[in-house]
């Protein structure tokens, strides 16, 4: 009757066998409890008998653990059989966030969120058909209105971070990554390993719902993804250490990540890119990239004589932030919108762009409009230089901007009803809601093909766009 735990390797555990296993486990639990109750019914027993009973408890626990290990080994062996059999190889999976039109996938994702107690965002009502495979949210009610603050809930630092992302208070890939790391450091500092659990496994479990929540507030950026991968690696390495040691080690390694990959890399890129800016240059930049403004301010400090053309676009108008920073440094600037980029391009000698991420097939992912500027530059024969830290390189590949993108709130392009219109032609929110055939699209990112980009400046040197997979391999062997 007693099934050997290692049996049935060829056919795998069927549902019946799984049920049997469960029954046995329950029996063992009950019998353990029964022994407990029997000991309690004899209160006046002496120490020796209690020792014996305690041993039996420990024995039972040991037995249970042994069984669990045996089961785990069986499952692992079975999986090994399957993969060596080679009938079903699991390759890279398609992520759920680009299958918003598949109801099965969405149901699974919703269940996962519910299990993690993360509120799910409501989909927008007026979706653009071309992007039906992506989530199209509308910024309506607060996402945290129904969240609990119990012990199993998400740390308030993460909640605050998520809201800052959702409202657009923290923007820019470096800023988002640094904010994420500092919030996670706070979580780690406040973390206490519960009894009978290991820090390395439990902390990871605790961070999973936090990351799902941040993803719901605003889809993760490439820089954040890279940081999370690094975090998971560091946590898994922290075995067999005392709690305080592990926590301090984690916090130190995360701070080091920010220091090396953002601060020091920025300095290296700035030194490298300064050599490319010569006196009398007219440099065109697009939007607001912390790295690019740093490069230009450093070049100005070194004494180069150049002026800058800032190209901006609606609705974020991020270029104004860059404009301010550059003017504060004392650099002479001009300002245009992206539709006038080709008008001003004959005056420009160089275009320097920042990137949100670099894809494995050499495409540059940046804020929407980067490809427009690169295209206009190519048409006028102006070289395009992209500056990007190496931690923003990712293994994704995409050939156009439709496959994977972030759809922002369409209301950012419209004017609120009955408010003062800066321009009378602008569409009202009321008009948009009432007309069925009218849709508004607010894209966040776009991809620039590698033939528009002359060179990418990273802290590892100046490389062509197509060398991204090489760098990824080098970095993965390093860490």
């Amino acid at each position, binding site marked *: 009757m007693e099934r050997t735990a290692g049996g049935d390797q060829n056919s795998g555990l069927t549902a019946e066998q799984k049920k049997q296993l469960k029954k046995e486990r329950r029996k063992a639990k009950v019998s353990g409890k029964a022994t407990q109750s029997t000991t309690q019914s004899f209160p006046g027993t002496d120490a020796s008998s209690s020792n014996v009973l305690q041993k039996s408890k420990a024995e039972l626990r040991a037995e249970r653990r042994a069984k669990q290990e045996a089961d785990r080994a069986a499952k692992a062996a079975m999986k090994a059989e399957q993969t060596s059999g080679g009938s079903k190889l699991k390759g890279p999976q398609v992520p759920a966030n680009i299958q918003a039109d598949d109801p099965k996938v969405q149901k699974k994702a919703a269940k996962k969120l519910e299990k993690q107690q993360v509120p799910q965002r409501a989909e927008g009502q007026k979706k653009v058909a071309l992007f039906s495979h992506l989530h199209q949210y509308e910024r309506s009610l607060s996402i945290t209105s129904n969240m609990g603050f119990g012990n199993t809930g998400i740390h308030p630092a993460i909640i605050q971070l998520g809201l800052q992302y959702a409202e657009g208070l923290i923007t820019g890939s470096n800023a988002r990554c640094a904010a994420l790391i500092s919030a996670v450091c706070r979580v780690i500092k406040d973390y206490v390993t519960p009894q009978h659990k290991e820090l390395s496994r439990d902390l990871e479990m605790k961070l999973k719902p936090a990351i799902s929540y941040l993803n719901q507030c605003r889809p993760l950026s490439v820089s954040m993804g890279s940081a999370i991968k690094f975090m998971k690696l560091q946590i898994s390495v922290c075995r067999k250490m005392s709690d305080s040691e592990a926590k301090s080690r984690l916090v130190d390694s995360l701070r080091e990540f920010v220091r090396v990959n953002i601060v020091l890399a920025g300095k290296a890129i700035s030194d490298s890119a300064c050599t490319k800016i010569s006196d009398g240059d007219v440099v065109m930049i697009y939007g607001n990239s912390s790295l690019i403004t740093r490069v230009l301010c450093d070049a100005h400090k070194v004494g180069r004589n150049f002026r800058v053309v800032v190209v901006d676009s609606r609705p974020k108008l991020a270029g104004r932030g860059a404009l301010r920073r550059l003017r504060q440094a004392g650099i002479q600037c001009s300002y245009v919108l*992206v539709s006038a980029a080709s008008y001003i391009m*004959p005056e420009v000698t160089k275009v320097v762009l920042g990137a949100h991420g670099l894809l494995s097939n050499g495409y540059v992912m940046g804020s929407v*409009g980067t490809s427009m500027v690169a295209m206009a530059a190519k048409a006028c024969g102006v070289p395009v230089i992209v500056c990007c830290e190496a931690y923003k390189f990712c293994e994704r590949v995409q050939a156009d901007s439709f496959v994977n993108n972030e759809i922002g709130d369409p209301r950012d392009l419209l004017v609120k009803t009955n408010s003062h219109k800066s321009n009378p032609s602008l569409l009202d929110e009321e008009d948009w809601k009432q007309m069925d055939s009218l849709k508004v699209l607010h894209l966040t990112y776009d991809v620039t093909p590698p033939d528009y980009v002359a060179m990418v400046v990273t802290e590892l040197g100046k490389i062509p766009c197509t060398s991204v997979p090489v760098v990824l391999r080098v970095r993965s062997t390093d860490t």
Partner: protein
Amino acid sequence: MEQFLLDLKREKYNGSYDLAYKTINHLRKIITQTRWANANELMAIIREAGKRMVSAQPSEYVIGNMVRRVLKIIREEYVRIQGESEESVNKGSLHKMVTSDQDFQDFNTPLKELKTIVMEAVNEYIDEMEASIHNIAAQAVEHIHSDEVILTVGKSRTVEAFLKQAAKKRKFHVIVVEGAPLYHGHELAKSLASKKIETTVVTDSAVFAMMSRVNKVIIGTHSVLANGGLKAVNGAHMVALAARQHAVPVIVLGAMFKLCLLHHSALGGNEASFNRLSSPQEVMDHYEGGTEILSDVQIYCPTFDYVPPELVTLFISNIGGNAPSYMYRLLSELYHPDDHEL
């Protein structure tokens, strides 16, 4: 006359059709109200008025077009009355120049019927102009098929009529680029959506991203230059570049009165009359741009874009479709070479 010049200076017209209509009405008034003895005097009067009008608003080529068209009409009608064929008015061929010893027409004979006949011809031309939008829209069904995705920039009355006409028979999608900082795209989108055409409004920055899904780009233009290039609304050049990259045909709609004699040269100071920089208020308002830190920044807000003829696939006008390389030939039908310099 003075009132009209003031209106021109203050830009009290909306759109090139409106301006063309006003100009030709004004010229018609001049023909009827002034005293002239023969065709030469009439042409001198028109030329003089034309020079003043063009100098009042040099960036609007339609004024010059109308003046030259009227001059051509006068020449043609004069020659017809004289009994000769109209072709002789045009510059003779090489053969003619060598063989014929007949001198050029001197337009000096006073003719009584000239006034009425010229007025008739001018009225005919005005009718043709009024019908131009309908003629262009009637060709819409030829060019737009079902389930196509069409991209357009800004707001052009011709494009609006074109798309609405096609929507009567076919179902297709339109992506309208909003065209900051004037946001005419929003108006066009509203108008199209009210006729149940599937419209999506996108920002200027998303054009390259969207272009991979677009089948055709249909834009209107302010004027067509002699080499087939365009003087179009700001943002059209970026759209045309993106279309070339993705091998999407660019179709330009424009009536014949928009075709002008001038060529474009970005160098040599011609840029000043080609493009018009409007108030930077549209790009960055005084509230933000006037702060101390941003007061030194140069803000540009160009109104027009030059689109070279290589980027344009097809011109559709009220007389049919043409390739951009053929546009120069049509000039000889519209204007007389002696009128090139007013």
